[in-house]
Structure formats: C-alpha cells, structure tokens
C-alpha cells in the first residue's frame, strides 16, 4: 500500500494573504471517500486558485472522474509566493485541496495547460511535490505526470516534463487512461511503468514523449508508437457529463458565476485563433439539455449569475429560444445572464438587452483589426458598417460603455492598418454622438500552432512597442476613449513557447530555477530572469518567436493532429497573404478543413 502524507495546512493559513485559496471544503465537494479509490489522481491547475476554479474544463474532468467509483480526483493549484516561501522554509510538500495529502504521493498528477506562461508554475508544482522535473528522471515510485489542454497542440516545449500528454478532449480518454492504470499497475516496478506507458501510447489521443525523438526538425516515433497522434473529441455533448453540482468557491474567483456550455468548436475560422481550429467540429447542445443544466446549476450553487459560455456564443443556432426561456424563468429570481462578447449585428444588441435585464454590464465587441483589408487577412468576416451599427445600436439601447478588442502585430499588417484603428474608433464615436465611453484593449498577435498563421513570425518587439506608444498617445487626445495594451514581453514569451521545439524546455527549466513564477501576472512577472535564462542556455528565443516557417518544411508539431488538415491551413495562409476571405461554415459551402463533419462542398 502506498503511504500518503497528510499536511497540517492550518499551520500555514494564518500567514498567507488569501487563505481562502487553500481551505478547500467548497460546497458540492463529492461525497465520496477520496482515500479509498483504486486509482487516486490529483489534478493541478498551474495558476492561482481564482484562475483555476474559473476554468470549466477542470470542473468537467473532476466530475467525470469522481462519478466513477474506482477512481478519485482531487485538486491542487499553484501556490501564491507567500505560501511557496513558507512551504520551502518548513520543508513541507504541496498538498491537495480535498484531503490535504502531499501531491507527490498520488498515483497520477495531471496538469491542465491553458496558457503558455503557466510553464514555470508546472515546474514549481512538480518541485514542491518532491517529484523530479523531467520524466526521464522519474521511476515507478513517482506519480505518473500527465498534461492536456490547448497548449499541448504544440507539446514539445512541455514534453520532457511529462510522462504522457493528452491531445484533445478528456471526458472519455481520462477514464480509459485510469482504467488502464488500474489494470497495469505501473507503480509496481519500472518494467510495469514502461509497459504501461507503451500501452497508453496506443490509445488514440495519447502522446508519450519518451517514445519519440527529434530528427531534422521533425518529431518521429520510436518503436510502434503512432507517427501522428490524433486528437480526441466527444461526438455528442448532450450525452457528455456536465457538472450540474458545481463546486462553489468561498473566495472570489475571476469568473464567479454558474456556467452553461452551449457548444464546442466555432464556425468562424479566424486565422489567428487556435481555439477556432482545435475545437472543431462544432457540436451544439440542445436547448432542452441547456435548460436542464441551468436549472440544476442555479439550484445547486446559489449563484445569481449564469454565464453562457462558448467560442462565439451568439452563433448558437437556438440562442434566441434559449435566452428567452432562461430570462423568462429566472429574471424575477434576481438571476442574470452574461455573454462573453457580442456578435456584430442588430440581432445581437436586441439579445444583449434582454440578457442584461437584471444587471447591466458593459458590452464587448471584438473587431480584432482596424482596417477592412486586415480584417480580410485574418478572416474576421465583418464590415466596418457592421461594427459601427452595432456600437451605435448598443449605445442607443443604454449601453454607454463599450469595450473593443483589437490586435496589433498581425501578419501582413501595414502602417495604414494602425491608422485604421484610429479611424474606426473615430467613426464609431462620431456615429454614436456624445456620452459614449470606449475602452479599447490592444492585444499583440501571438502565432499559434495548428492555425493558418502558424507559419508567421511574430513582429519584433521594438516595432510592436512603437505601435503601442503611437496608439496610446493618440488615445490620450480623444475624449471618452481609454486605451490599454499588454506588456509585449509576455506576448513574446508566449510566442517562444507556442512555436518552440523540445529545446525550449531547457529555457523554461532554467527560468524556473532562476525564480520565474506566475509569469502571467504583471506583479510577479520578472522578465530579467527570462533574459538570464536565455543567456545561460544559449537558446535563441527570438528565433522561435519571429521566424517565418515555410509551408513545405517540417514543423515541430507535425506529429500532432487536431483533425484540421495541413493542406487547409496552408491554403488559408495563402489566402490571408492575398487578403481573401473564406466564408464561415454556416453559410455557403464546406471549406473542407478536414475535420470531416460533412462532405467537402456540402451545403450546411
């Protein structure tokens, strides 16, 4: 029998800033004996509690595993710097939230990797759990370390730290993985462990990095591991497990509300968007399923707000019916609905009005680019008129504050496109008249694997920062306009990891040893540590971020398939260069992306 160490957590809670992050005991913790299950897994979210608990994927997997009698899943999040210092000073391992047992003692340690800059947090959790950072240094006495999430669609920068990575959706795959663990008992000996990992590699979606090696810029399979690992996805969301009894955190989290997932996938095909590619095909839940989810979530949680979550929520086929049904049922109970961002048409404004009957918030519009040409390049199929009309309609309907998302540093961007941003804002203001407050958020383009823009290099920092300064000083002269942008340095590191190969793992490891933690938080981000790490490892980080890749060369992530064909990505890239658009999946004919939800050329 495995020995588990219980950590006296209360000893530390008096001395940390937000103990609510670590107390656990949320409402709706499953009533099961976590310590008795045959296979015990702890799922880590490599960011602070308030971020981790805002993530639906983690909640879904938690529900899936804990519904199974043989398995149990507990949680752990990245500790704040104060708790980390205390744990290290007192030589105490990191603990799970449910039973306060040492994370390193579990059979399996999972990571949900949603953001490139959580890389050092992953290493910190491994280290605080007493586990060797690299898979090659672990043996049968250590937990099996598995990861998943959008970042692993280019797994290489993470690969050396993981025994297994899961490509795609986890609802079904995780149960197969746990069942195989139970059957093959990899904890018994190194031979058992090796046999287990070889067996895992044969299940669709599972990538076992130790069974692959790099050759001429490509990652090739050793032994009989599959040459290309194909992603997993579930066919019917209506049949899938959804947490109808969501954990209700005691401390406030980023998205502090109940959640409905309307559909997965997106029919838009924006060329910069990784989510738009990797979550294909689009799969909707029925209104009946959603109304049933809503009733359960509200009743079981006590939330007074319900978020309608999806990639482009208002594209849901029955959005009208759903919103009417929910508002009719809940608005007099003081329960409000919220939408992530607005589709740019008149219908959406009407709907937003209905959605925000109880509490009126701000509306968010995401034109992404300032000029029509650049919007065509990125395949954001909306016209300037759509944007202006939507903003004006929203303003006339009482939404006096609007948020705009725009991006700079996009591929094929010219000086005129930056002027186009100013021009667009000016036109929106003029059309709306006095009293409109605009908050403009300027993001920096980060090229991502498995998108048409995977070939494109990120723009140089100096150029991006000059554009940021130019826009900022322009905005200062504009009444009612507030403009903010993100630090380029974090976008740069995102790009390095997003398009890196296995060598980038050395850089991440070095940055971790130098003290890099919570890099996504501006108050903790230390770019100087990363610069040191770049210098010490001699890794040409800039090359990874800024290089343009040729469509006929090997990519570091060619051994991973999200189901969208390389030919489609190439064609989309070429069309982007020519500023040609591709109609989205709901109109016209199928663009034959390769996911196979219908036959090429078939009408929707």
């Amino acid at each position, binding site marked *: 029998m495995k020995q588990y160490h219980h950590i006296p957590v*209360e000893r530390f809670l008096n001395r940390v800033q937000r103990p609510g992050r670590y107390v656990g*005991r949320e409402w709706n913790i499953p009533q099961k004996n976590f310590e008795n299950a045959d296979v015990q897994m702890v799922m880590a979210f490599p960011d602070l509690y308030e971020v981790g608990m805002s993530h639906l994927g983690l909640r879904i997997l938690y529900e899936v595993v804990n519904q199974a009698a043989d398995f149990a899943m507990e949680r752990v999040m990245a500790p704040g710097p104060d708790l980390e210092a205390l744990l290290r000073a007192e030589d105490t391992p990191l603990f799970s939230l449910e039973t306060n047992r040492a994370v390193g003692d579990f059979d399996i340690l999972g990571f949900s990797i949603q953001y490139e800059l959580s890389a050092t947090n992953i290493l910190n959790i491994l280290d605080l759990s007493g586990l060797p950072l690299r898979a090659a240094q672990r043996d049968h006495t250590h937990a099996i370390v598995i990861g998943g999430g959008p970042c692993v669609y280019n797994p290489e920068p993470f690969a050396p730290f993981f025994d297994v990575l899961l490509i795609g959706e986890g609802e079904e795959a995780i149960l197969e993985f746990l069942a195989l663990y139970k059957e093959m008992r990899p904890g018994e000996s190194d031979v058992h462990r090796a046999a287990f990992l070889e067996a895992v590699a044969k299940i669709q979606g599972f990538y076992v990095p130790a069974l692959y090696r790099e050759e001429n810029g490509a990652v090739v399979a050793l032994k009989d591991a599959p040459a290309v690992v194909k992603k997993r996805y579930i066919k019917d969301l209506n049949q899938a497990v959804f947490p109808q009894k969501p954990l209700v955190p005691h*401390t406030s989290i980023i998205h502090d509300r109940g959640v409905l997932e309307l559909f997965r996938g997106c029919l838009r095909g924006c060329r910069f968007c990784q989510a738009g590619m990797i979550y294909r095909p689009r799969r909707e839940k029925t209104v009946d399923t959603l109304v049933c989810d809503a009733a359960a979530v509200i009743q079981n949680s*006590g939330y007074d707000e319900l978020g309608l979550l999806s990639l482009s929520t208002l594209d849901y086929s029955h959005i009208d019916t759903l919103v009417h049904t929910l508002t009719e049922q809940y608005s007099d109970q003081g329960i409000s609905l919220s939408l992530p961002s607005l589709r740019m048409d008149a219908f959406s404004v009407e709907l937003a009005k209905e959605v925000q009957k*109880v*509490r009126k918030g701000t509306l968010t519009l995401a034109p992404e680019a300032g000029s029509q040409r650049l919007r065509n390049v990125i395949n954001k199929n909306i016209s300037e008129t759509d944007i202006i009309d939507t903003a004006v309609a929203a303003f006339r309907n009482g939404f006096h504050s609007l948020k705009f998302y725009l991006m700079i540093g996009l591929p094929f961007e010219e000086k005129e496109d930056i002027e186009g941003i100013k021009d667009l804002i000016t036109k929106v203001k003029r059309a709306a008249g006095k009293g409109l407050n605009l908050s403009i958020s300027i993001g920096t383009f980060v090229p991502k694997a498995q998108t048409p823009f995977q070939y494109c290099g990120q723009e140089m920092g100096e150029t991006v920062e000059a554009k940021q300064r130019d826009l900022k000083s322009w905005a200062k002269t504009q009444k009612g306009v507030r403009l903010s942008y993100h630090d380029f340095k974090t976008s740069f590191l995102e790009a390095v990891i997003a398009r890196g190969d296995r060598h980038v793992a050395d850089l991440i490891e070095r940055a971790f040893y130098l003290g890099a933690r919570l890099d996504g938080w501006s108050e903790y981000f230390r770019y100087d540590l990363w610069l040191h790490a770049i210098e010490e490892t001699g890794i040409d980080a800039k090359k990874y971020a800024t290089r343009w890749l040729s469509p006929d060369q090997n990519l570091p992530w060619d051994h991973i398939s999200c189901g969208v064909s390389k030919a489609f990505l190439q064609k989309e890239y070429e069309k982007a260069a020519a500023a040609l658009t591709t109609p989205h999946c709901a109109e016209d004919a199928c663009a034959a992306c390769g996911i196979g939800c219908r036959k090429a050329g078939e009408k929707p």
Partner: protein
Amino acid sequence: MKFRINYEVKGTLAFLSHLEMMRLWQRAILRSGLPVAWSNGFNPRPKLSLGPARGVGIEGCSEYFDVECKAKVDPEELVKKLNDILPEGIFILAVREIPQSGKMLEAIIDEAVYKVTFPQGVPADAKEKAAAFLKEKTAPFIRKSPKGSKEVDLRAFVNGIEIKEDGIYLSLKTSPAGSIRVTELLTVFGYWDIIKDIRIQRLGLFVTVGTKRFTP
C-alpha cells in the same frame, strides 16, 4: 419577517474573510430556496447583515447574522433547510424571529469573548503577564497595515483577562468605531508567532443593556 441566525464556524473555514463569509451566506440562502427579500438597485442582493467581523483563522462558536424573508417561514424549517446546504464546518445552532425595525447586529454588539489554547498548555508566565497588563492604564501598540502604521491603545479594549487551566479567556470591547485583534494582544504577551499552532475561538458575542449582558 426578519430572523436572527446563530451559527458556528469550525476548522479551516475559519480562515475565510468577512467578505467571503458574506458571499457564502448569500449563496447558501439562494440554494436553500428560502423566500429571501432582495435589495433594490443596480445590483440586487439578498438582504442580510452579518455581526462584527471575526479575525481570519479564528473559529466562531456562536456567531450571528440577520436575514429578511418576504414570506412567512417556520424557524425550524429555516434551520433545517440551511443546515442541509452548508459546507462542512459551518452549522446553524438556533434561529429566532426579530422585530423588523431592530438595529443592526454590528451596532448593538459591544463585547466579544475569546478563548486561546496552546498545544503545550497555557504558558507559565501568562498569569503574571495578564496581571501586569491589566494594571497599566494604557498599552500602546503599533498596528501595521499596507496603508501605513497607526497607534492603538490595546488596554482600552480589554474588559478582562482570565487565565484558566485549559486556556486564556479574553473579554474584548467591540463596536463599529473600533476593535482590536486577539493576535495583537498575544503579540504583546510574546506568544504570537513564537509559539506554534495557537488556536483561537470566539466563544460568544454580547450586548450590554445598562449593567446587564445579553446574547444578541
């Protein structure tokens, strides 16, 4: 109808802040399905008000909050409904109906009684230290916060200190105008941050009317 609810908080949930407790009760009440009254305005909330804030990490043995319902509710049913949907560590002890127009808990509660226990027993010098502290007219203490430091007179807030075999019992003044932390007293005594795993419980909250002391 307005109710005064008496509850306890034990274990790690004692580490929740006042604000977090507020949200916990709001959600618990919505989950319970009780016909709670809502505030008006831009951001409607269930109408409830909590007693004086407890220090983070201090267990509450007899805490209070008031809640307003818009329909008739049987107090016993209220206790049952709430206890069914509360997380482990929080438990409703009693409920009573109170007049609609009564004062807020925070305004009427003027005394809090604490018990401090030590894993290795009460320190040998506790009696001596308590007597010396009570003899003084003032006990200035520098309270540090992110906003800067401020001097407070701890003595002015101490009604009494009693050293018993099982722990130190403290009676402290509390009001919306001010209060002191038990940890501040323990710091002055030289115990806090020196002795490990000190446990603090708030045993009760009291209202003084004339010379008599009542529970709220």
